[in-house]
């Protein structure tokens, strides 16, 4: 671990039963009376907006506009349209309800409505924003991305065929509201993939080179919650307490990785996702054990420590220290097998049915140009990235 670190998370976390009912108070405490909701069709169709709207109505707060057409891969045009609606309705705060795409879109909309203009690409990059933005609240509906506590957003620019990245601490919401009602109806496949996404965030945060004592605390606690609740919730999807634990774990893993970054699993996953359009959580689950095996000699100590949180004090105690890292990987493999048995979550590239063997070279090529690779404990060459892909093939 380095002898220097930085850690920052000013997001107020409002978590637990009846958390949504705190929204009116939070809005009025920031002098906001006209919030706008940004979400997607799936969230609205599942009825997830109903308790939010009802909580606001009871608290005498009017939702002045709802935009529910955020696509899975949001674009600069979508951001511009939503900003136009925000201005037309004279909204004064944003509530994002959804997964990574809705939250990233809302972050970008907040830039436009706070800073002005119609072209979000003008604000791309790091450190461009110099002032706090409008009041912003996030209600995650998946337990995985951790976007509610990250200071980045990614939006596609279809005209230039590029993805624009925005990075600023001002993108962080004022509060993240974590209510078990929001993830209660998540289908098994998405519960599994997003749970593994959170596990990967925590595991990479705990083993990559920017790890620090504070991110370690969040990461290890997140791993423990995922270990104790993911399979339980898969078997009993209506387990409200388990759902809340998973949602909190995702937020904690998000706090961990946004302060210690991630490594090769993400570099491979970003490349695979971009090329083969495989959901991020699936990519994470797929690569996690293979990358841990590749990194093992550099991460033996922290990965061995994680065994305590991945299993139980009893298993940790009876496992010889020298074998704990291998046992951690074996435990993650077992978890993937269980998830595959329950919902066919792919464990190999071949099992996805969406990747051709010929694409491996291109994925390896893209991987070594991905920013996450900088924080991986090992220096990764194209050939080594290709070798990991080969192992993950079948």
């Amino acid at each position: 671990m380095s002898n220097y670190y930085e850690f920052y998370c000013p997001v107020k976390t409002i978590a637990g039963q009846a958390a949504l009912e705190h929204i009116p108070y939070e809005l009025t405490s920031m002098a906001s009376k006209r919030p706008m909701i940004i979400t997607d069709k799936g969230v609205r169709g599942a009825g997830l907006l109903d308790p939010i709207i009802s909580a606001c109505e009871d608290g005498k707060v009017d939702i002045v506009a709802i935009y529910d057409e955020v696509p899975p891969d949001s674009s600069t045009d979508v951001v511009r349209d939503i900003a136009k609606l925000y201005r037309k309705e004279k909204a004064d705060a944003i509530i994002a309800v959804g997964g990574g795409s809705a939250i990233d879109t809302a972050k970008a909309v907040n830039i436009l409505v706070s800073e002005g203009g119609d072209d979000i690409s003008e604000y791309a990059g790091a450190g461009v924003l110099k002032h706090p933005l409008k009041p912003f609240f996030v209600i995650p509906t998946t337990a995985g991305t951790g976007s509610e506590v990250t200071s980045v957003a990614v939006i596609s620019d279809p005209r230039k065929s590029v993805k624009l990245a925005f990075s600023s601490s001002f993108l962080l919401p004022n509060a993240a509201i974590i209510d078990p009602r929001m993830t209660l109806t998540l289908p098994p496949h998405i519960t599994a993939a997003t749970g593994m996404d959170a596990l990967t965030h925590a595991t990479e945060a705990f083993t990559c080179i920017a790890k620090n004592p504070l991110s370690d605390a969040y990461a290890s606690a997140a791993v423990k919650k995922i270990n104790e609740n993911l399979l339980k919730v898969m078997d009993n999807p209506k387990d409200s307490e388990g759902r809340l634990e998973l949602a909190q774990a995702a937020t904690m893993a998000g706090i961990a990785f946004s302060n210690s970054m991630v490594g090769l699993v993400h570099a491979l996953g970003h490349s695979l996702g971009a090329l083969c359009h495989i959901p991020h959580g699936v990519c994470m689950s797929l690569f996690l054990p293979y990358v841990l095996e590749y990194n093992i000699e550099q991460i033996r100590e922290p990965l061995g420590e994680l065994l305590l949180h991945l299993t139980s004090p009893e298993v940790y105690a009876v496992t010889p220290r020298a074998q704990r890292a291998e046992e951690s990987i074996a435990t993650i493999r077992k978890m993937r097998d269980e998830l595959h048995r329950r919902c066919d979550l792919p464990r190999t590239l071949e099992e996805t049915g969406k990747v051709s063997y010929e694409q491996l070279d291109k994925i390896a090529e893209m991987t070594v140009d991905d920013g996450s690779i900088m924080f991986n404990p090992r220096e990764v060459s194209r050939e080594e990235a290709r070798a990991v892909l080969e192992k993950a093939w079948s």
Partner: protein
Amino acid sequence: MVSQARRIYVQLMMQVVGRAMQAISEVDDEVRKETAVLPDGFLFEMTIMPDGPALVMGKMPGGRLRYMGEKGPAAPDLSIQFKHLTHAFLVLSFQEKTSQSFANDRMLVDGDLGYSLRMVRVLNRLESFILPKLIAERAVKEYPHDLHLPKKLIHGARIYFQVATNLIDTVRAS
């Protein structure tokens, strides 16, 4: 006094590293593979906030790099900025690896992140060639396992020779 000495050291190292990057791009195929994808005329800057010292490299046809001095002919396409002279000193005196400096938030990247990774790999490869293995291992995340002594000595000597020639030419011209 210490601060002044650090500034002089960093200034000197920037000049050496700039010339050495030019030299390694002429002698090493692996470096040219990294830089080949950069557009010709691409300007890379490594600088220290708030006002230098700095080095600027220009991408030439065929993947070669050219040291342009402290300032380039135009605004750089990619800039890696140390937040403080002390942070640059830690890296340039091989007390902190470049990747660890990134991880410690001591550097900012303004430009394409993928290209910045390529330039960091060029710097790592350069350090592996020109430094004794024991020191290079402190400077890079992983010492290249395929870099054997004969190649290291031959390439290292060519890089040092070109840096020295370039420095002498610069002194004569000034």
